[in-house]
C-alpha cells in the first residue's frame, strides 16, 4: 500500500475529486493548508503599507491506494491538477505499514 500526499491549487480540488471518482477512488482526506515552493507570493498594499504574502492557500489531499493502482491514480491526479504554471503543487508517496478499518477490524488492502 502507498500513501499519496498531494498539495494542489485550491481551485483544482473539484476536478481532481471528480477524476479520481471516475476511476473508482472514493476515499480521501482533505486539509486546507498554506505554503509555497518555488512559487513566489504576491504583494498586497493597504493604505500604502506593503505586505508580501508568500504563504499561499493550497489544498492537501491524502489517500492510500493498493500498490497495483498507484500509477493509474497518480496519472489521473496529476493530469487533473495540472495547469502547467508555477504553483501547481507537488505529490509525495510513502510506504504504508498497515491499514485498519475501525468499524470491523479489516486489515491491509481490504480496509482501504
Amino acid at each position: 500500500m502507498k500513501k499519496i500526499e498531494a498539495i494542489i491549487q485550491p481551485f483544482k480540488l473539484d476536478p481532481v475529486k471528480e477524476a479520481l471518482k471516475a476511476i473508482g477512488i472514493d476515499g480521501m482526506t482533505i486539509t486546507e493548508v498554506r505554503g509555497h515552493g518555488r512559487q513566489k507570493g504576491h504583494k498586497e498594499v493597504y493604505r500604502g503599507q506593503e505586505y508580501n504574502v508568500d504563504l499561499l492557500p493550497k489544498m492537501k489531499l491524502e489517500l492510500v491506494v493498493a500498490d497495483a493502482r498507484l500509477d493509474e491514480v497518480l496519472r489521473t491526479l496529476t493530469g487533473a491538477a495540472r495547469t502547467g504554471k508555477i504553483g501547481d503543487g507537488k505529490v509525495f508517496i510513502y510506504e504504508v505499514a498497515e491499514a485498519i478499518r475501525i468499524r470491523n477490524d479489516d486489515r491491509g488492502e481490504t480496509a482501504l
Partner: protein
Amino acid sequence: MKVLILFVFSMAAMAQTAPSIDARLAALDTAVKSAQSAGDNAWMLTSAALVLMMTGPGLALFYGGLVRRKNVLGTMMHSFILMAVITALWAIVGYSLAFAEGSSVIGDLRYAFLRGVGITPNPDYAGTIPQQTFMVYQLMFAIITPALISGAFAERMKFSAMLLFTVLWALLVYFPMAHMVWGKGGLLNAALGGKIPCFDFAGGTVVHITSGVSALICALYLGKRVGYPHEQMKPHSVVLSVIGACLLWVGWFGFNAGSALAASGLATSAFVATHFGAAAAALGWMFAEWIRTGKPSVLGAISGCVAGLVAITPASGFVQPFPALLIGFLAGIVCYLMATLVKHKFGYDDSLDAFGVHGAGGTLGAILTGVFATSAINDSFKDSAGKTLALGWVDGNAGQVLNQLVGTVIAWGLAIVGTLIILKICDAVVGVRAERDHEIEGLDLSMHGEEGYFFEV
C-alpha cells in the same frame, strides 16, 4: 333653480357662523406653523437616527474590519459603548455645557439634567422643532466624535483607560468646542454673535479637527503597536469596512443635511454637496493610488469617500455643488498622501488613519469653506440693515479664509493641549497602554474575554 336655492342656503349658513377675518388668519397661521413644525421634526428625528447609525454600525464596521482578527470586538466596542457613555454624560451636563448660554467658551449649567428641555422649541437654535429633538440630534454628534479618535489608539489601549479618556475628552475638548462654534454667545459662532465668525455647518472643526488632531496626539503618546511596522497588520476584513463606509455615506446625509435643523432648501443644498463631495473624494483617492502603486484598491476608494465626507462637512450648507466636487476631489488626494506618504515618513502609528482622514480632511475642509461659502446657498447671514452678507472668498469676502484659519488653529490647540492633559491623567489613574502580553494576545480576549469569530467544527 335647485342650484340657486342651495346657494342661498349656504350663504345663510355662512353668515351665521363665519368667524372674523382675523380669527381665520390666526387659525391659518397656527395651521401653517404646525405643518412646518411637523415636517421639520420628522426630518430632524430621522437625521438623529441616521447620525447614530454612523457610529453603530457604520464606524464600528469600518474600523472593525481594518484591525486584526484578534481585536475586532474591542474595536467595535469602542464605538458601541460610546453610544451609551456619552448619552448618559449628555443628559447630566453635556447638553448644558455645549448649548446653554454661558461664557464665550463654555455653557453654564442651566440645562443640567436636561432641566427645562422639553417639547417647546428653543428659538436660538431651531424655532420649529422641540428642543428635545435638537438636544437628541446634537447628542449623536457628541457620540461619534470621540468614537472617531479610537482609530488612532486601536489595538493597544486599555478599555478602562479608553472609557476614562473619552469622558474627560468630551468634558474638556468636545463640549467647549461645540459651545464656541454652535452655542449661543460662543466665541466662533457665526450665527449667534461670535467675535470671530467661523463657518462650520456640520462640524468640520468641532467634530473632525478636534477628533483627528487628538487622534494624532494619542498615537504619538501611546507609541507604536508591538511589531509595527515589521509585522503583518493588514485589515482582517475589508468587506466589513466596505459595509461600514457605505453606512457612513448614507448616515452622513443626516449629519450634514440635518444640520440645516429644518426640512428646508438649505437641507437639500447640504445633502447635494455632501453626496458630491463623497463621490469626488472616492475618485480622487482611487486615482492617486492607482497612479502611485499601480492598483486601485477597494480600501482606497472607501477611505477616499470618508475623507470627502469629512472635508465637505463644514462646507455643506454653504457651497454650490461644483465646488463640493472640487473640495471632495482635493480631500481624496490630500488624505491619501497623509495616510501613506506622510505617516510613513514620520513613522507614527495612527493605526486606522484617524488623523490622516479626519484631521487632514477636516482642516482642508474648514479652510476651503472660507473660499467657497456663498450667500447664493445660505442667505441667513444679514447685516443690521437686513442686507444679505457676503460669505466666502467667492462672494468677495477674502477675510473669511482668515477667520476659518483662526477657528482651525483654536480647534488644533484645544485638541492638542486637552488631549495631552487627559492622557497624562488617564496614565496616572489607570495606565493607558495595554500590557504587552494582553496586546499580543489581542484585546478581544484580554479585555473582554470573548472572540469575534468562533467557528465550531
